[in-house]
Each structure stands twice: as C-alpha cells, then as structure tokens.
C-alpha cells in the first residue's frame, strides 16, 4: 500500500505528497493515530485530504496511508436502534471505549462482529438469483424484518444456503456465477456513500406519507418518495417539526440525521424514542429508527459526509421494499461544511462564499429520494422520502442554500417567526407554503379518507386566503366596517387557525391526528361556517351565532381520543344542526 507524507495542515484540510497511486475519494489514514480522512483533490502526487477528526497535533512528515477504498458504509442487521456519527461509527460503543467525550483515532466497526442473527433462507439451492433478489430474512427488531439481498454485481445459481444463527461476516449463501466462480454472500454489504444504490426503475409518487400533523396532511401533504424542505429562522420550530415527523410519519423505517445541530436534540431523540409507541404496532419507535449524529461541536468534515451516510442507509432499506423517511436537520450546516472545505482548498467562491457546485450537490442528494421498483425478480416497490430542514441566516430565504433547495423540492413548509412568537405551532405559514403533490394525492384522499376531503381542503385554503385579504381591510378601517358575512368568515378562519392548524406536539392526544380525525374536525368547523352563514342570511342574530357554545366544544375536538372520534362527531353534528335551527327560529323575534 502506498504511503505518503503530510506537507501541509490547515484545520481539517491536510495536503500530502507521494500519493500518486491513490484514487480520488479514497479513504486514507492520517498520522500515527490513524485519523480517518478522504481524498478530495489530486494535483500530481499531492492529495488534498479532508480529515473527519480533529487535526491538532498533526504536522509535516507524518505518514498518510490510503486504504484503497472509497468512503463506505456497512449495511446489514444491527443498524436499527443505533446511533452513529457522520462516518458510521457507533456512538454508544464509543462511549464505552473513550468515555463521554469523543477522542481521536478510534476505529470501530459499524455492525457488531460478534452478535449472532437468526437467518431464515427464502430461496433454495439450485435456484437462480440476480442482484437484489431476497435470499433470506432476519428479524432484526420486533417490528422490522430485514431482507438479505444478493449484492449488486452478483448473478448465478445458489449453490449452498444455510439457516441458523450467524454473525454479519459469516457466509450464509454461496452463489455460483455464470463463469463458474463462486461468490460468498454474507448478511453484510458495503456500499460507497457518494454513489446512489441502483434500482430498476423510478416511479411517480402516488401515496401520501401521512404524518398525523393536520397542517401537513391536510393542506401541504408530502408523497411517499417525495422531497420536502422546512426552512425557518431559529426558534420557529424546525426541529420540533422534524421530530414530529420522525415520530409519527407512517414509514416503515426512519433515518434521522442530526447534521451540525445541537447535542441535546440528539439526546432528546435517544431518550424519548424508546419510550414512544408507534401508533400502528404499539412498539417503541426506536425499533424502526436509525440515528446519525454529527453535532455542531463534532469535526466539520464528518458533517459533510453525514448526510451521504444517512441516505445510503436509507436506500438500503428502500431496496428491501420498505417505505423509508429520511430527515436531515439541517442541510444548511452541511452546506457550511462544504463552504469551509472549499475555502480551505482556495476555490473561487460562488454566492456568499459557498462553492459554485453547492446547488448541484444538493440536487444530487435530494434526487436520491423517490419511489422505485427495486432490483430483484419480484419487482417490489420501495420509497424513500427526504425531508430537509434549512436554517437560513436571519430567516431570509433569499440566501443560496434555501434557493438551491427550493429549486429541487416539491413541498415547502415555510416556518414563520411571527406565528412562533404567538406560540402557534407548528408555525407553518399557510399562505407561503405549498405542496406540488396535491393533485396527485387528491385521489388517494378521496378514496381512502372521504370523497369530499379534497373539496374541504380547497375550501379551507380559499377561506384562509380570503381571511388575509379581509384582515388588510380590518387593519385600515376596523372590523365593524365589514358585513356580518365577512365578519363571520373571519370568525370561521379563526377556528381553522386556532382549533385546526394549531397542534400541540407536547399534548398526549393532540400530538397525532389520524386522517379520519382530521377529516371530521375540518368537517365540523366548515359545517359550522356553512350553516352559521346560512342562518345569518335567514336572519339569525350574528352575535348569537358567533357565541354558540358548540364552538368551544368543536375547538376542543382535538383533545378527543381517536376511539371516540366517530361517536363524538355524530353527536356534535346533530347538536350543531339543532342549535342553528333554534337560532334561525329565534331570528325574527330578536330583530327589534
């Protein structure tokens, strides 16, 4: 193996000479401690290396050894419930070895080499297999059964296959390739993180990724296999939105990347997810979650790698035919890491010091999401949905990272500082946000929730838009200048905002709302508006309609348990109808 020597050290960037045999993007070991780095530029025999660990103490003359392989992740059983750093070192194991602080030069395998997994074959000897075919399964956690697939590039006839308990390095299957050579298959595969995993065909997303968050599911839904961005200034609740999605999204697997964010946020996930129950299976959410944590105090170069590590792991589960949701919080920190390395490489900067290739890198990342037909003969479908948080400086989304992101993503949940100040959470602004999946998903909502759901949605959006216009008038001339109908419209919108869109993530019931509950809640509010507005037309007293006691009950519908929703709904609808009838019949008498 060729060995080079350091000539220059500048922060996380190390330049070494004598590296002519190494390839671009090879992983190298730097210095006596064997710090992990990656070659990002070659000039003659000089390689520029980004080092994933703190470089203090390195100097010219220290050796640099190339490992000859690009930065890769290990894929196999054992990733779920785990927390990794940006280059897939398990942090809980690191805790045992190096104590509460992360020390340097620690070499840890991502998957345990000693743990045995029960492998159940699904093919027999003599069967012909190709890349992507499932040859067996492992029940990794109570809720997730992972599939062992034939690695990319192998095709042939199964010669031997065994069931039993194996470690990830044991050979579980031998395939005889067409040229007569044998290929050993283990439960673990390796894959370079900067290359998307192959699939057969990409499909158009058709189903929503339900999140239990009313403003998202109803107004701005994301599709399974879709991409969304959540930009917002600090304090607007980006992380809470991301956490809520990680908790309640109806995905089979969740990959959560904490990229350059707060350490305590990852700790929060680590401590909370094992306690939270998945609404479908009743098992802890942690059992379907993989965490990647590269917090802001950890080395900046590994932050650049962390989102690739995360998405490669997510793709691996997608290839099994699962629906995977990936959350990256925050892509802005990733872009900053890119900028820092670019600056140290003395590249000509683009906008605001970011490298000119920022937009293309971001696009490459997000394009790895999608709904696909996986490799393998059974033609199973997998979906990878990606949701990236963006932290624009000062909350101003005219900056390069936000703009580059918006050009790619189909769903935009714009967080609004003013809503956050009023403690309206999730602070997703209903006027600026959008989802380009609406038309495509309407059919699903009509078929699976209620046929009038898409209609209710449009009506809600229309009302909110009209409210914004009416508010402008109110600002100028006061609310009394409006007609009763318009005043009533404002009241209805207030209900939509405060009772429907506002959702308390920390309330045990309100934190998640099924689509059925969402539909019934919205129906109640809009029905109140429709009937109330009719009543006013028929001469009912405006003040009485506005102060109907049922409004408060509808307002508290969000705290109704899922099992009570249907019953309560019928009761309230009936109560509403009666109340309105009464007001209409009183209408004339009150008119004095």
């Amino acid at each position: 193996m060729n060995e080079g020597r350091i000539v220059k050290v500048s922060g996380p960037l190390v330049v070494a000479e004598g590296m002519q045999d190494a390839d671009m993007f090879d992983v190298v070991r730097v210095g006596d401690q064997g710090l992990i780095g990656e070659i990002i530029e070659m000039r003659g025999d000089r390689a520029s290396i980004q080092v994933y660990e703190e470089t203090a103490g390195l100097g010219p003359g220290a050796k640099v050894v190339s490992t000859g392989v690009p930065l890769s992740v290990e894929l196999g059983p054992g990733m779920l419930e785990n927390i990794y750093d940006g280059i897939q070192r398990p942090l809980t194991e690191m805790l045992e070895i190096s104590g509460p602080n992360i020390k340097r030069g620690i070499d840890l395998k991502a998957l345990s080499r000693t743990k045995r997994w029960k492998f159940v074959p699904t093919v027999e000897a003599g069967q012909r297999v190709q890349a992507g075919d499932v040859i067996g399964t492992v029940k990794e956690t109570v809720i997730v059964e992972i599939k062992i697939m034939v690695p990319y590039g192998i095709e042939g006839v199964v010669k031997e296959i065994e069931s039993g308990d194996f470690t990830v390095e044991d050979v579980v299957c031998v395939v005889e390739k067409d040229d007569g050579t044998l290929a050993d298959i283990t439960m673990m595969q390796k894959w370079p993180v900067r290359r998307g995993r192959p699939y057969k065909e990409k499909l158009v997303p058709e189903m929503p990724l339900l999140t239990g968050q009313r403003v998202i599911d109803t107004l701005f839904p994301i599709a399974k296999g879709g991409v969304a961005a959540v930009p917002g200034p600090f304090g607007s609740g980006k992380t809470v939105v991301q956490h809520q999605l990680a908790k309640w999204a109806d995905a089979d697997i969740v990959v959560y990347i904490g990229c350059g964010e707060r350490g305590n946020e990852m700790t929060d996930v680590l401590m909370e997810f094992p306690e939270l129950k998945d609404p479908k299976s009743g098992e802890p959410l942690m059992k379907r979650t993989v965490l990647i944590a590269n917090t802001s105090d950890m080395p900046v170069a590994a932050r650049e790698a962390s989102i690739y590590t995360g998405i490669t792991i997510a793709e691996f589960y997608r290839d099994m035919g699962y629906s995977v949701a990936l959350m990256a919080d925050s892509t802005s920190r990733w872009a900053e890491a890119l900028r820092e390395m670019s600056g140290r490489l003395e590249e000509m900067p683009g906008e605001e010091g970011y490298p000119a290739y920022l937009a293309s890198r971001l696009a490459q990342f997000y394009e790895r999401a999608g709904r696909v037909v996986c490799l393998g003969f059974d033609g199973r479908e997998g979906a990878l949905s990606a949701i990236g948080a963006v932290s624009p400086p000062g909350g101003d989304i005219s900056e390069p990272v936000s703009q580059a992101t918006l050009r790619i993503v189909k769903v935009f949940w714009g967080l609004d500082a003013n809503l956050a100040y009023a403690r309206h959470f999730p602070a997703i602004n209903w006027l600026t946000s959008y989802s380009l999946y609406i038309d495509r998903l309407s059919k699903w909502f009509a078929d699976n929730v209620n046929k009038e759901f898409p209609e209710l949605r449009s009506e809600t959006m229309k009302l909110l838009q009209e409210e914004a216009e009416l508010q402008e008038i109110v600002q100028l001339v006061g609310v009394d200048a409006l007609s009763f109908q318009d005043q009533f419209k404002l009241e209805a919108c207030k209900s939509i905002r405060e009772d429907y869109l506002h959702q308390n993530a920390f309330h045990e019931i309100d934190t998640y709302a099924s689509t059925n509950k969402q539909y019934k809640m919205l129906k109640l509010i809009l029905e109140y508006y429709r009937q109330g507005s009719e009543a006013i037309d028929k001469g009912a007293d405006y003040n009485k309609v506005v102060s109907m006691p049922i409004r408060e009950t509808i307002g508290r519908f969000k705290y109704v348990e899922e099992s009570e929703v249907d019953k309560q709904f019928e009761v309230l609808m009936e109560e509403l109808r009666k109340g309105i009838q009464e007001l209409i019949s009183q209408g004339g008498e009150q008119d004095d």
Partner: protein
Amino acid sequence: MIKEYRTISEVAGPLMLVQGVEGVTYDELGEIELPSGETRQCKVLEVNGTNALVQLFESAAGINLAESKVRFLGRGIELGVSEDMLGRVFDGLGRPIDGGPEIIPDARMDVNGLPINPAARDYPAEFIQTGVSAIDGLNTLVRGQKLPIFSGSGLPHAELAAQIARQAKVLGGGENFAVVFAAIGITFEEADFFVSDFKRTGAIDRTVLFTNLANDPAIERISTPRIALTAAEYLAFEKDMHVLVILTDITNYAEALREVSAARKEVPGRRGYPGYLYTDLATLYERAGRKKNHRGSITLIPILTMPEDDKTHPIPDLTGYITEGQIILSRELHRKGVVPPIDVLPSLSRLKDKGIGKGKTREDHADTMNQLFAAYSRGKQCKELMAILGEAALTDIDKLYAQFADAFENQYVSQGYETNRSIEDTLDLGWKLLDMLPRGELKRIRDEYLDKYLPCVCEVNRKE
C-alpha cells in the same frame, strides 16, 4: 529537547510567519521570547512544509523579527485547574491578577475541550428557579441549558445576568453551586459591576473570574471563553459542581475572530465574519450540558449585544441556531420602565417542556404558559390596532386583551432586580392576570385546571 527559532519572517496584525521549522504540528502552542526576556504565547494556525503560520494571543508590540525567539512546546494550550480557583480573579489567558499566589494545578486540561458524545449526554430536565417571572414562568431555564441574553447597547443585561447569578437555585437542592464568569472585551465599569455585585452578596467565594477588558489585546479574547469553559468543565465534571457560566460579551469575541480571519485573507461570510463562525461558536456553546453518570452540570448564559438591535445580524443569528433558546431584551420596554425589559414573545427556552409540570414546577404550568403567550400576543396586536384606529374600533373582547397586555407587562414582567419570586408566586400571578379574560377565551388550558385554579383566583381578585 525544544528547538528555538530565530526565523520570524513576518508579523502582520495578529499573525506571524516562522520559517525553517521542523516537527511543528497544527494547533501547537508556541512561546515567543522577546529581546527583553518577556515571553508571549502563540499557536500554530497552519503548517506548510517548513513554514508555520502562528496566531499571537497577545499584542505584537515589541516583537523584533531578528532578535525574538520562538519555541514550540509540543502541546496545545492548557489550563492548570484546581478547586482553589474559586474566589480568584484571572486575566483572559488564565493568569492570576488578584495579587494572590499562583494556582497549584490539580490537572492540566486542553482548553479546546473535546466534543461530547451525544450518547453520553443526559437531557437537561431540572428546573432552575431564577426568581424572574418572565424566565421561570414563560422561558424556563433548566440545568445544563445554554440560554443567551440578546441585548443591545445601553440595555441592562448586566443587571439581569447578575440577578440570575444571585437568585438561581434548584428547588429542594442544597448542592454545590459555582459561577464562572468571563469578561470578554467589556469595559472596566461593566466588569466592576459584576465583581461588586458578587462581593456584595458573598457570591464571590463561589466564583471564578476571568477578565479580558476592552483595553486588553483583542486577540487574547479568542482564548478567554475557552479558558473559562475549561475551568467550568473541571468544576462540573471532576468536582461534581453545578456551574453557571456567564460569558459577556460574545459580540467582542466574534469581532476578534473576524480580525484574525481578515488577517489570514480568508473568504468572508456574511458581514465579513468568517464562514466557520457557526462552527466556532458551537464549539464554545456545546460545552454546556450534563453527562450521564456525572452529578455536575454546566449551564451557560452568554450575553451578546446585537448591533443595531438587529436579531438577524450574524452573531445573534448563529448563536440562536446553536443555543437552546434566547432571552431578548427590548428597548421599547426599557423606555417604558419595565424592569427587567424582557420581551417575552420572541424569547424562548427550548428545553422548558421537560423542566416544567407536575413534580417539577406545577401541573398547570405548561397550559398557563401557552395561554399567557397567546393572550399577550393578541393583546399586543389589539394595542397596535388601537393605535391606528382608536379605541372605539375595538370589540369589547379586544379591549380586554389590550388591558391584559398592559397589566401583564406592568405586573408580570416588571418586577425589579431585587424581587425574587418563587415559582408558585409566578404561576399564581399568571392566573390572576388570566382571570381578566372570560373563561371561554382560555382555550389552551385544560378544563380540569380551569376548574381547580380559576375559582381560587377569582375569589382573591374579588376581595381585592
């Protein structure tokens, strides 16, 4: 055997180039010996072949290129730490300046610290009672949190910070408590305010002070917060103390960082601050927290003055992205005589939800907090509307909200720097104010709490 170099070829601003060096490593500490025999510290920013670019920590005055000598010490910058540091005053580089004896170190610790493994952190969840309603009730501080104060020139952030340092306590706890205070480029008068306040209340014995004043070399400031946090880490994680760290003023720190970055001719980010300002600030702030299996904790309150009161300026902006919330002082409230002038709406404590509620503060805390925020926010809107359209344009309920906003500012927020309110007092005061509104408006509070707490308040109010 340590080599000495007489090969300084350039000194420009805070940077110095030494040629012909061997075996020098990145981030290594160096010592410059002046012809007069005086020594100064520096550290290696970049090594390129046999050239070492070093950053001075002190003034460059008096460095003679031909006569000065440089030694590289083979280690990073370390601080000798000991429990005896409590009650002492040090300069910005950790040397005693109170005339007392040198510290005999128990251990030497690298001032840069090491990143904390997120799996080793323990989530901050213990309520700290500061005695300030706007913080305890609405933006609750918990142990191990980093909660900055965003202030502006001429606003009383020092008074508020001193009040927190003086009053902060954990309910039912009689545990070891210490304060580490770092003055970063502030004036003598401001530093003296803290020192006198600590002396007046006797807190000085539990305090370690690091002072880099406005007339000390700006580049020294880059080390001051790191040195203070190193002392805090020692006290918290080696000596099991609960340490409150106050860093003032981060704006001066960031400016010193910009100075070095500009001297290195780096590509600047926003407003000339280096692109790595976020990462750099994060390596400071993230040192706060709690660790599993350690009893101590570091709670960090950095203070920064927002240039032109602009929250989107890179320093407050990046700070806000790292810290767990912020306390924002408002010039408008200050002019109105609200003391302390905390603007509760844009202020936020992200960790409050885990630190409040039954068993920690009181069961009704979360709901009343949300309700107070919502009501105050609406009240302020109503007041704005009133200013444009006149009082007559408001509905009756809007008028009530406007009155509520005034009462909230005058009674709840404005409590003075000497009042120390218990959490019960704060919560009861909240109920008293909410009673101004009709019950139907209190949508964010669960019925059971309305039934339990509201009637008692009504009675009290009626008697008054």
